[in-house]
């Protein structure tokens, strides 16, 4: 059962071959066995999960049919879930019990899915290796020595190890796609504004976007059907007609124009990743697609632009953590300023502090024009590059990450090296576009390699179609790591 797709699980539930409670128990037992090794979950609460399963079983018994009714899903610990501890990977929120549901969580509840718990992540979603989590790093299920990627590393590892059939993630600069790539699963970052940000702990508000993570593109389409939708509680939520993201899955790809940006295949890309991407391109040609070379001349600037804009927004967003209304408060202080400074010194980890300092500096008097405003102008140039490329192609294809999963400690001491590992994903967030990562091979040492697909605004259904057709021809997304101790 653990290798079933979401559709197969939903069918088994509808046919009463298994109950929601039995299915949740199966995955809870697997989490109990594997979590000590992988550390993919921060919070597991068997009682809460089983009470949600019971509700789903009652709805199933009443004859209700909904595509994911009774299916278990894990949630990144960035989403507030009423009554659940919601830490965002930080000491600051280590004891924070959310008093309300994020809209994404509320939508999953309404759809009848069952929460398996809260997955580990880089602190406040700032990181590409999960090494910044206050709760310790997540291990990559394919190798104990390898990072799972970040920031949604717990979700990616949980799905890769089939501790959960699917999970939610968030992506500000690659935080869904890069861990999906490093752990060998599929993950989609939708167009900015498609999924509500309400109740999702804010990092960089003009870039943050929630999305699905699961073994296959078809699973992701079913999850996105639940997650997407207008929300009046999010001021940047888009008012659009509801879409069925599964509608184009079966469309043939004959005539599809795949854009290959020359900048994606330049210096810095590992030979193993390049080879796997070439093989995937050959597969697409067999399916009738054609390739065109495109150019994103300003892509190299996306990392510097991002490391101005994201920290600037973060320094503002994280000012709310002051020890007054919720979260950590220092125990010993002499006045208000002292309380703020000690609370924040104790509650935030090194990477979060670093980004708050960068953000504070670039927004400070005298530097705003040179950094923040200049970054916003280049952001427009980067978005314009994509708009130009999409005049010549239907989707853009390239690597998700320049290398397969790196080792723990390899980049932890060098922030710049860590930041550059997101070189292929960051531009997509700056432009607000949808992007996806799907598995397309393994390195010589057995670490997964991911293929990135980028679409024009609102082209999620197209991306899912292009990914699904590839997955009908290949089995990379079906591969599972093996654990001697597992059921």
């Amino acid at each position: 059962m653990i290798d079933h797709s979401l559709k197969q699980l939903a069918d088994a539930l509808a046919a009463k071959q298994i109950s929601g409670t039995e299915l949740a128990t199966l995955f809870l037992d697997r989490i109990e066995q594997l979590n000590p090794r992988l550390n993919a979950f921060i919070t597991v609460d068997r009682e809460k999960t089983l009470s949600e399963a019971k509700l789903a079983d009652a709805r199933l018994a009443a004859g209700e049919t909904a595509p994911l009714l009774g299916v278990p899903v894990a949630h990144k610990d960035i989403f507030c879930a009423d009554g659940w501890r919601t830490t965002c990977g930080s000491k600051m929120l280590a004891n924070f019990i959310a008093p309300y549901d994020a809209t994404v969580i509320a939508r999953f509840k309404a759809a009848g899915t069952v929460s398996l718990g809260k997955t580990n992540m880089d602190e406040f979603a700032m990181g590409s290796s999960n090494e910044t989590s206050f709760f310790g790093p997540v291990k990559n299920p394919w190798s104990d020595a390898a990072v799972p990627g970040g920031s949604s590393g717990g979700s990616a590892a949980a799905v890769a190890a089939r501790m959960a059939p699917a999970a939610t993630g968030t992506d500000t600069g690659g935080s869904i796609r890069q861990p999906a790539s490093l752990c060998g699963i599929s993950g989609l970052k939708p167009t900015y504004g498609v999924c509500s940000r309400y109740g999702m702990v804010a990092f960089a508000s003009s870039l943050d976007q929630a999305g699905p993570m699961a073994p296959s593109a078809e699973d992701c389409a079913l999850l996105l059907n639940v997650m997407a939708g207008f929300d009046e509680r999010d001021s940047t939520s888009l008012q659009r007609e509801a879409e069925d993201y599964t509608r184009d899955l079966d469309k043939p790809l004959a005539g599809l124009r795949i854009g290959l940006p020359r900048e994606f295949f330049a210096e810095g890309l590992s030979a193993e990743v390049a080879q796997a991407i070439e093989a995937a391109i050959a597969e697409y040609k067999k399916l009738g697609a054609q390739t065109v070379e495109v150019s994103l001349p300003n892509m190299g600037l996306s990392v510097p632009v991002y490391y101005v804009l994201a920290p600037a927004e973060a320094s503002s967003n994280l000012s709310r953590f002051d020890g007054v209304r919720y979260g950590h408060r220092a125990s010993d202080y002499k006045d208000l300023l002292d309380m703020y400074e000690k609370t924040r010194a104790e509650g935030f980890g090194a990477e979060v502090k670093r980004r708050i300092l960068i953000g504070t500096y670039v927004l400070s008097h005298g530097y705003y024009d040179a950094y923040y405003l200049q970054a916003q102008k280049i952001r427009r140039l980067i978005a314009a590059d994509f708009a130009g490329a999409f005049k010549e192609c239907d989707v853009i294809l390239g690597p998700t990450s320049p290398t397969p999963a790196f080792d723990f400690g390899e980049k932890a001491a060098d922030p710049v090296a860590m930041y550059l590992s997101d070189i292929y994903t960051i531009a997509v967030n700056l432009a607000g576009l949808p992007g996806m990562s799907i598995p397309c091979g393994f390195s010589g040492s057995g670490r997964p390699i991911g293929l990135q697909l980028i679409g024009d605004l609102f082209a999620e259904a197209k991306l899912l179609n292009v990914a699904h057709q590839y997955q009908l021809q290949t089995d990379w997304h079906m591969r599972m790591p093996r654990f001697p101790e597992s059921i």
Partner: protein
Amino acid sequence: MALTLQDILHIARLARIRVTETEAEIARGQLNGIFGLIEQMQAVDTAGVEPMSHALDVSQRLREDRVSEPDRREKFQAIAPAVENGLYLVPRVIE
């Protein structure tokens, strides 16, 4: 441009994060590395380019001015570090 130790201490004060001199010294090295990367932006000619402050070209939605949320003060204050009579407690601000 290179940040000095004094710059770091000043920024940390603005950000309301207490740092020791040792921490500030480490941060100085790292931030200078990061700003080395960021400085690439300065070579780009952006004359006449409109700053892009948001991913999409849409304007802020307005809502009707009416009460839409119920009073959940008790639930929200239950997770606060210190409250009394419905008020959040902080050290004395005004003497």
